[in-house]
């Protein structure tokens, strides 16, 4: 699965306004709504489920990245938003360090295989130090899209 296929370009937020985890999650859900991928009617429920998920175990997997995710029947295919925080956000991450890059994933309810493939595509890139550094330093939506495209070609080649 390609990152450029799941990340919604209009839901890339190069500079998140929120400083707290809960605000940032809402901001990214709203970005997906603004991009036309989610309905505003589902905002509360999706945000609530994302927060529940974080409370059961942080998706801050360490090294400054978090991948909050939720399954919801509001989507028919996987959609993801990407947000960057300059100051860092406390996600209660496993390594206790702030999170600078967030990939928020909404998967359909009934397709666990696709969800795993999307997570694989995301971690194939996020597990690389170079990618994490370049993503964190990206300053525009265009720069992030380019980076995701490069990551896709490396992933498929590798």
């Amino acid at each position, binding site marked *: 699965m390609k990152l450029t296929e799941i990340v919604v370009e209009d839901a890339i937020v190069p500079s998140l306004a929120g400083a707290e985890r809960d605000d940032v999650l809402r901001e990214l859900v709203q970005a997906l709504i603004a991009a036309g991928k989610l309905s505003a009617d589902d905002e509360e429920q999706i945000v609530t489920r994302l927060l529940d998920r974080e409370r059961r*175990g942080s998706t801050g997997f*360490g090294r400054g990245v978090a991948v909050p995710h939720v399954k919801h029947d509001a989507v028919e295919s996987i959609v993801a938003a990407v947000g960057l925080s300059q100051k860092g956000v406390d996600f209660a991450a496993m390594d206790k360090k702030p999170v600078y890059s967030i990939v928020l994933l909404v998967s359909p309810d009934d397709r666990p*295989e696709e*969800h*795993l493939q999307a*997570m*694989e595509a995301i971690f194939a890139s996020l597990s690389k130090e170079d990618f994490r550094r370049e993503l964190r330093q990206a300053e525009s939506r265009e720069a992030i899209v380019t980076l995701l495209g490069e990551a896709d070609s490396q992933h498929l080649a590798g």
Partner: protein
Amino acid sequence: MSERCTIEVTIINTLGLHARPAMEFADIAGGYQSSVSVKKDGIDPIDGKSIMHIMLLAATKGTALEITAEGPDAEACCAALKALVEAGFNED
């Protein structure tokens, strides 16, 4: 004395090896001194103590995995991981 053990397991829970079970797997593996690697057909072995790496397996229900532990407590580590996977990570 260093031990080495290799076991084969199959993912049986409906949702597969998604983030929560991956976390549990890495947690248990991390509790042992032994190194843990996990191999799926066609891809290079990954570090079984890293959640990010475990997610690279994209191990759906029915996927066979080969787990290798190496170190002073390898046997115990294999047994614990086998039990976890075979219990379907207590899901379903």
